[in-house]
């Protein structure tokens, strides 16, 4: 069993493309759920809106990929308005129902055969991010240090994405420490109280939904550019819950929570995968218990187990404040 490769793969996954995309998605969810108390179960919808915006801008509108970014932000805003206008006046659960459905609806619409000319149907679209790699300042070769080594394309992408994470997190910190953020938190605690003090609760919720949704769209941009492809079935409902899980691991309503949570999530996810494969090929695991084709499923089971244990033994996540959790029972 190659322990070195297990560690190496886990560490690389912790800062890899999926991890950084999840960080962005989880930052959005943190704005929604951690700070405003909005139950968005359809973050994946915002991610696919972002990803498809870029792909369609390049492949169908024949515009530069860079035009796809503002188009994607606009599309995510419209998506947020569509979800928010009918539901934000209602109780929190309605938003949850509508968002989970909207994410699925978007996936099913873009994979529809009748839209094949626009979205590529179930096979999606590829090769639309050349503009991004065309301005890569890194020449051919591998970059990085230690186990963190990538070719010039992936390295360029990761540099841009993590810089983006730093910028977005900085903005979120500024916002949350402002009176604007105070209103969001008061809505999370009791929206009638906020309303009785003259706060336009509906509009603040809408702003939160739009901003967090745009963070989700950025996660979609990252995935689409990183893989040079969009495929509807990548954006399944489970993605939202993985991102929520990552957020809960890190700790909600803390700006560092989504970052560390997503990194740890992917470290474990990749680590368990390699570990299981190594153990399987070294015959540490008997065939009747698990064969080589079942690694993927067992990995998800183990992650699920870990996620059940986490709220039991550390409900506040890694960085959350335990006192806040105890106060939860109002």
């Amino acid at each position: 069993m190659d322990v070195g490769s297990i560690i190496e793969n886990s560490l690389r996954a912790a800062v890899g493309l999926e991890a950084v995309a999840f960080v962005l998605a989880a930052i959005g969810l943190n704005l929604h759920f951690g700070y405003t108390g909005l139950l968005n179960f359809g973050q994946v919808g915002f991610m696919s809106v972002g990803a498809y915006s870029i792909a369609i801008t390049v492949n169908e509108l024949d515009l530069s990929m860079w035009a796809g970014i503002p188009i994607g932000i606009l599309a995510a805003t419209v998506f947020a308005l569509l979800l928010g206008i009918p539901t934000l006046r209602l109780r929190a659960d309605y938003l949850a129902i509508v968002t989970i459905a909207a994410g699925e609806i978007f996936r099913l619409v873009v994979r529809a055969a009748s839209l094949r000319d626009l979205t590529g149907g179930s096979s999606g679209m590829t090769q639309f991010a050349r503009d991004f790699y065309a301005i890569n300042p890194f020449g051919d070769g591998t970059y990085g240090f230690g186990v963190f080594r990538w070719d010039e394309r992936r390295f360029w992408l990761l540099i841009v994405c993590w810089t983006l994470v730093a910028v977005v997190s900085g903005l979120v910190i500024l916002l949350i420490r402002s009176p604007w953020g105070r209103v969001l938190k008061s809505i999370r605690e009791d929206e009638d109280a906020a309303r009785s003090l003259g706060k336009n609760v509906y509009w603040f919720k809408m702003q939160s939904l739009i901003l967090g949704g745009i963070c989700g769209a950025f996660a979609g941009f990252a995935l689409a550019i990183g893989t040079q492809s969009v495929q509807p079935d990548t954006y399944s409902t489970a993605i939202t819950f993985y991102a929520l899980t990552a957020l809960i691991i890190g700790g909600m309503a803390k700006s560092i929570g989504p970052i560390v949570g997503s990194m740890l999530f992917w470290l474990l996810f990749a680590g368990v995968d390699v570990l299981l494969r190594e153990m399987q090929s070294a015959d540490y695991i008997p065939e009747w218990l698990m064969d080589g084709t079942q690694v993927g499923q067992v990995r998800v089971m183990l992650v699920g187990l870990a996620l059940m244990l986490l709220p039991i033994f550390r409900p506040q996540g890694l960085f959350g404040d335990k006192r806040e959790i105890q106060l939860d029972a109002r």
Partner: protein
Amino acid sequence: MPASALADVTPVPGVPKPDPVLVVDGVRRTFGGLTAVDVEHVEVQRGLITALIGPNGAGKTTFFNLLTGFDKPDTGSWTFDGQPVAGVPAHKVARLGMVRTFQLTKSLARLPVIENMRLGATGQRGESFLRALVPSLWKSQEEAITERADSLLERFKLSHMRDEYAGTLSGGQRKLLEMARALMTEPKLVMLDEPMAGVNPALTQSLLGHVKDLRAQGMTVVFVEHDMDVVYDISDWVIVMAEGRVIAEGPPESIGANQQVIDAYLGAHHDAPTSAAEEEAQLAEAQAMIAEEEEGGSS
């Protein structure tokens, strides 16, 4: 005596006041077949403490919800400070200067006490998304707000809890915090929904003092209360509701003797006076029954 402003006002339901801050006309709210509120006309005098009393289910809280925009009436209109406010959303009502508290205290548990207070200030520049990103645009205002919040906390004896989570406060302290936070909006009219409920007697006295302070500072107070001692103690005028209607109003000392109020609280006819003829008839009936029973016993 501030109540002297109402000395010449006839104590009948819907009577006009010399200087009303709140005027309500034909407000009706039904839930299915139940008419929760059906107020024809009522006025609240500026600068005084008006108590709103009535038995459970009289529609007091629903009436509060309607007036403050937390619920919508089927019909009706009302003006606050001369401005029509029917149909105005709750947050705008609050900004106009008509602030309310809740029967079940709404402290923002996972925010520190001082943040609860700061939230109450209206017209904050930093509450706009773009300006929030540039702290220099709102820092000075924030400092002024904090100063005001601290002096209110001082007045309400909550300074020692300033940086604690509001969720750690006791029930009585939460009532104090909610009232103090409402004052951060710089209201003209304060509507308190059962401010003394669940508060120990010592704290009740201090809360009463704070309510009187509001009047001394020129604010109008409307409060819902069940404890008649409290009502007698601090209110200048009492409005009585029962089954959604205003059935009586008047100065507190007159209200206890009002027959309709007694009926509303204890049920009508509980000691309805009877005429001599009726009494005789009842007596005869009773005697007949006794005689009947005796007969049945002997056979």
